């Protein structure tokens, strides 16, 4: 197959074959993985569940991992990471994503409002080390808050289909019951599996306390012997970490942080640190262009015009927020190519040079 593709690409040179095939049908691509949305469900408040049919390159995910999807919004392709909520053993190779609409989340809002069956999105292979080990532990604690529920959902469902015999505590924090996606299914799982304990707490309703040692001790007295998977907002992450550290159980705690880069109120301030991850250098942000900051850190990135017209200095920004010095535009998307000579860091930024 690869030999044949190579041969055909001799004919389409210099363009990859996919650049022709995608014009016929966006999911016909040979190398680039994509997915077509087949179902859209809006059950819980503020979130949408999408079923995706990936193209044939999809090799599945491990419960807890995430995938990156790309959608075009007003002409621009934006990519974001989401954890599939389906079991890792799903037979039909479909992916189910539950996406919570964040007030400032461009992509999540867009999908919440506009996703329809037939829509095609970009898809990257599943990645991330936050997943159940192949050898399932005897006891498992899953602690999640808000949209952090998604990787844990995949874990719990996978364990259910596998007929897992150990004990599981599934502890989830949210605003109120209507906001919990897949709530009915979670409760059904708990009923069907006596070894699963599903607890949903709504601190904002004032009925339940926030996360604490006592709470954990009450729900899962055996937690010290468990492997714990934690994913949620910073406050929850911190509370759980503190407890585990005090109990000297940090090595049994696995976490997935969602890094939400938010642009600071005043983008012109120079604070934070600039990391050039390709060369292992970190410096204080001086407010100058990234090209100048890289040079004063002793690096020699390629450049030409130094005024934003030749695109010689383009490099990939791994994470963080940058400000375009010509337009003032602020960009917080991860893994984006940017022109070093006309962009300045806003807060912490990681550049791959």
């Amino acid at each position, binding site marked *: 197959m690869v030999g044949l593709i190579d041969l055909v690409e001799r004919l389409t040179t210099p363009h990859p074959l996919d650049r022709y095939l995608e014009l016929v049908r966006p999911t016909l691509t040979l190398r*680039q993985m994509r997915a077509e949305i087949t179902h859209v469900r809006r059950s819980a408040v503020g979130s949408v569940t999408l079923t995706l049919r990936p193209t044939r390159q999809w090799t599945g995910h491990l419960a807890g991992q995430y995938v990156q999807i790309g959608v075009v919004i007003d002409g*621009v392709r934006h990519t974001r990471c989401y954890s599939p909520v389906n079991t890792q053993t799903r037979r039909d190779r479909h992916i189910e994503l539950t996406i919570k609409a964040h007030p400032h989340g461009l992509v999540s809002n867009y999908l919440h409002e506009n996703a329809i069956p037939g829509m095609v999105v970009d898809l990257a292979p599943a990645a991330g080390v936050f997943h159940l080990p192949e050898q399932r532990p005897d006891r498992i604690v899953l602690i999640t808050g808000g949209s952090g529920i998604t990787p844990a959902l995949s874990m719990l469902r996978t364990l259910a289909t596998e007929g897992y015999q150990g004990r599981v505590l599934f502890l989830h924090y949210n605003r109120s019951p209507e906001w919990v996606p897949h709530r009915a299914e979670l409760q059904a799982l708990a009923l069907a599996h006596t070894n699963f304990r599903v607890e949903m707490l709504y601190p904002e309703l004032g009925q339940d306390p926030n996360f604490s040692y006592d709470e954990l001790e009450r729900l899962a007295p055996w937690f010290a012997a468990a492997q714990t998977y934690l994913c949620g907002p910073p406050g929850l992450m911190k509370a759980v970490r503190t407890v585990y550290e005090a109990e000297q159980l940090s090595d049994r705690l696995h976490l997935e942080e969602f890094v939400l880069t938010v642009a600071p109120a005043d983008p012109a301030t120079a604070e934070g640190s600039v990391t050039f991850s390709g060369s292992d250098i970190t410096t204080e942000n001086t407010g100058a262009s990234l090209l100048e900051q890289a040079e004063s850190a002793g690096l020699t990135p390629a450049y*030409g015009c130094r005024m934003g017209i030749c695109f010689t200095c383009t490099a990939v920004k791994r994470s963080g927020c940058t400000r375009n010095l010509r337009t003032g535009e602020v960009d917080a998307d991860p893994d984006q190519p940017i022109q070093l000579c006309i962009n300045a860091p806003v807060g912490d930024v990681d550049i791959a040079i």
Partner: protein
Amino acid sequence: MAILTETPAGPVVLSAEQVEEIGRELDALRARVVEDLGERDREYIYSIIKAQRGFEVAGRGLMYLGFLPPFWLAGVASLTVSKILDNMEIGHNVMHGQYDWMREPGLNSREFEWDTVCPADQWRHSHNYMHHTFTNIHGKDRDIGYGILRVDEAQAWNPLRLGNPLYAFFLMVAFEWGVMGHDLEVENIVRGKRSWSDIKSLVKGQVRKAGKQVLKDYVIFPALTGPLFLSTLAGNFTANIARNLWTFSIIFCGHFPSGVQTFTEEETAEETQGEWYVRQMLGSANIEGGRTFHIMSGNLSHQIEHHLFPDLPANRYPEIAPEVKALAEKHGLPYNTGSFSQQIGSVWAKLFKLALPPALVKSQPTGVIVMRRGTASEVGV
């Protein structure tokens, strides 16, 4: 910066404040377009790509009927259009980063390759950086005559220049190969300013890219038509040459018609953004024409707008051209434009004229003078 230009009313003097005002107005214009970029531009570039791929597939297909002259001709025409669109409205513009904001891997300036023998990365250096940064500065912009031709009076004359029109003709026919060799700066090697080891990696890249192009057009596709091998080979060859004639003509109309200015390094040292803009305007020339003509020229028919804003999507140039023209008029600056026949005629007239020793040729009159830091530059006045 002192600038020589032909204005019917004689020299135009721009004060430093006026130059800064021009800079501000153009910055504002750019900001407005950037703000507005979106779905429409995406649709535009994809519609061009679809058309180009369509012409390509049709052209390759028609070669199977190449034994019938009308089909052969139609095939050649299709393929020529495909290659022109690929090189100009798609390749040249994508490689300028005009569509980088879309974040499409296939339309990213760093990753794009085009259907011509010159490797994209070398073009980005010789064109995007060297030519667009130092537009029309003697000693820096190697597009002034491409190291072969005399296209400006400030280039010294010698008896070899007598062949000027002939060299231009050869360059036109073999234009894609000329473009490929551009970054080698062969004339600097001849002068001893550059060594062969400096260019080894460039040559390697060229061999790799050109090899693929040659294999495709002159071996594989002809072979796929079996008994029509020679007919297809001739068809592909003709399409490549036709594309060369066209691209050469459009590109030469961009900077070499009469009235276009060149500059010296002293004049342009420590340039302000406003002065940079003025240089781009006075150093470029437009061609008038209809929508199809503009698309087929990669919108380099809007060379002035392209040089002011090389990274704005090309479909925006026709839209902003009236504003740029009005701005030029407001400040008394020339806005060099004309029909295709006018501009290309003027290019060839210049190529012939500058072949002759300066004593035999009448020189151009003085025009725009830009005041720098309050004093009129004396160069050329």
